[in-house]
């Protein structure tokens, strides 16, 4: 943790509004991108970010400097997003589906031609359960048993939902490539 982060954390622990704003300014962008990944629209993402920062400020005393601040902030945001999805009942029925990974994605797979916003949009187009599990496994790096525990589902369901997400994404990527002919499309979302 850098010196500035230490100062920020200390200020936030003292409920100093300037420090709170600085923390928001420094990490708000990255955390908002996470919120966008887990939700279906910007309004929901804004709600999640707002709730997450309130939690961050209220629980900053529990943060210990032995772990990176950003890691802690990201975990708060992810948990807030999952709570939000639970409230929206998007995680209510996650069934085990019979989809087998065909291995196509591992063949010289690259996302180099896609912009970040395009990729975000692709993730947001996934079915809610697939979207969440893909985020947790592929981006956040959780294992399937951890995801199963977090979401209250079986490990098999997590794996099958992830396979489905991966297959759908692969199809979408192929489609995008076909339509765009390799060019970068600036997609507004």
């Amino acid at each position, binding site marked *: 943790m850098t010196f500035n982060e230490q100062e920020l954390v200390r200020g936030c*622990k*003292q*409920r*100093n*509004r*300037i420090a*709170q*704003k600085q923390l*928001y300014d420094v990490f*708000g*962008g*990255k955390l*908002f*991108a996470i919120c*966008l*990944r887990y939700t279906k*629209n*910007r*309004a929901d993402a*804004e709600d999640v*970010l*707002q709730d997450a*920062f*309130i939690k961050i*400020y*209220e629980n900053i005393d529990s943060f210990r400097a032995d772990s990176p601040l950003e890691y802690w902030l990201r975990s708060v945001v992810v948990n807030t997003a999952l709570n939000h999805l639970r409230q929206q009942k998007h995680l209510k029925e996650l069934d085990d589906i019979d989809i087998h990974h065909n*291995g196509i*994605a*591992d*063949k*010289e*797979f*690259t*996302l180099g031609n*896609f912009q*970040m*916003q395009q*990729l*975000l949009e692709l*993730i947001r187009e996934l079915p809610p359960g697939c979207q969440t599990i893909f985020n947790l*496994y*592929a*981006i956040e*790096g959780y294992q399937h048993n951890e995801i199963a525990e977090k979401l209250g589902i079986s490990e098999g369901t997590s794996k099958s939902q992830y396979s489905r997400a*991966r297959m759908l994404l692969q199809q979408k990527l192929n489609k995008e490539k076909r339509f765009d002919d390799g060019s970068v499309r600036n997609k507004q979302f």
Partner: protein
Amino acid sequence: MMDPSGINNFEDQWRKALNEASEPPPPSVWQGIEARLEEDSERGLVLPLWWQSRKLWYAAASIAALLIVGAGVWFSGSDVNDQKINTIAANERGLRLKNDKQTSDAEKSSAVSPQKEERLAEGKVLENVGLVPKNTDEVATKGQTNPFKNSKEGVSIFEGGKNSFNKIDNDPDNLPSSVIRGEATRLQQIESMEQTITATLLASRPYSELDVHVQKRYVFFKPEVESENPTKLTGHKEYWAGLGLMPASFNPDLKVKEAPIGFANQTVSDKKSVSGSSEAGASYAVQTQGGMRISKHWSVELGVSYLKGNSDYQGGGYLLNANNSKSANVLENALAGLAPSSSPIATDKNYNFANTGSIYVDVSKKVSNNYQFLQLPVQAGFTINPDKKLSYSVLGGMMANFFLSNDLESASGEIITTTASDEIYRSMNWAATTGLRFNYKLSAKWKASLTGSYQKAISSGFKSNQSLDTHPYLYGVSWGVRYSF
């Protein structure tokens, strides 16, 4: 073929692409956070952390230091006063005072004891702060004219006016009677002065704020926060202006409640004249509106619209004047009854048929009855999915309809125009309005909308409702665009 390096691994690629992704959130998010933090702090969630503030510790230490110093000054001051009182009392009880020669300034300085120095200092302080009454100078002056020396106790009287001391001998035999009298007077004055000083000091204790609780000092921290980050609760505020065209079905719901004067003369016409009814006609409204979004879902909007309300009236028959062949349908005759006698409508369509020379013709002829209104709607809206591409708003409110004109086709085909100045129709009539709107986001600023509206007047459109009654209502579908600021 699998990528042996793992660089092109599916998850790694995604993680690499999105792990550092950043998207600036809109300003409304921070405004919302700040508003919620303010609510929390108002509920006192921050108070338990007062001990974490270094500033508060400084403030507490400063107050404590002031208290200690102040208490020292206060107690030392009261000691000196007590000593003075004791000294004077002892002198009064019989210390032998004697006259002595006035010593030089040097001797005075050398004769000053530590106690005298304290009293000297106190005398100066008292004078400086204005606590010493004016008669102190008198006391000092009197003492100066009768210099004393208290050689045994080593007590001297401070001559405040000139920074000099007069020594007093304890031998009363050597003291002239005038000196003793002067001393007695002086003792009284000093005693009264001591009381004044004591009372004054008690009354003006600078540390009367001792009961200021440390938590009170927390208050000075708060304005700092407010001044640097003024709270804004206007996270979703947005303004827009819109334009629309509404094809509509307008029905004035006009009813002849009782036979007009020309129709009342005959039994048939009396009955038939109230049997007519209005039919809605193709109408339209041109609408402009301005709105404000006051929260995520709620909005208010105002507007100005022009409504051309066309309709037909059928039934009631008409009268034909046998003498001059003029005719008047039931509406014309009824309107003439409502119009002031000076109105041309009244003279043409009322008095000519009020005699028995008119014939009632029971022909159900459809006559057009067209209105023009200026409308000022005020509506509240609740929007579902406000930030999505397609959103839905439920609207409700009131509308002021300002009557502009009415064109009524006469039985003979002529048009009779009634305006607000004819004082037949109410110049302003309230209507309730409700609607459902579909908004489609064309871009960040532009939206297209489709609004289904229903309007219904809540009072009669006529000033006098003796024989005629109208409660216009309207169904319309408005097509519009709006621009957000």
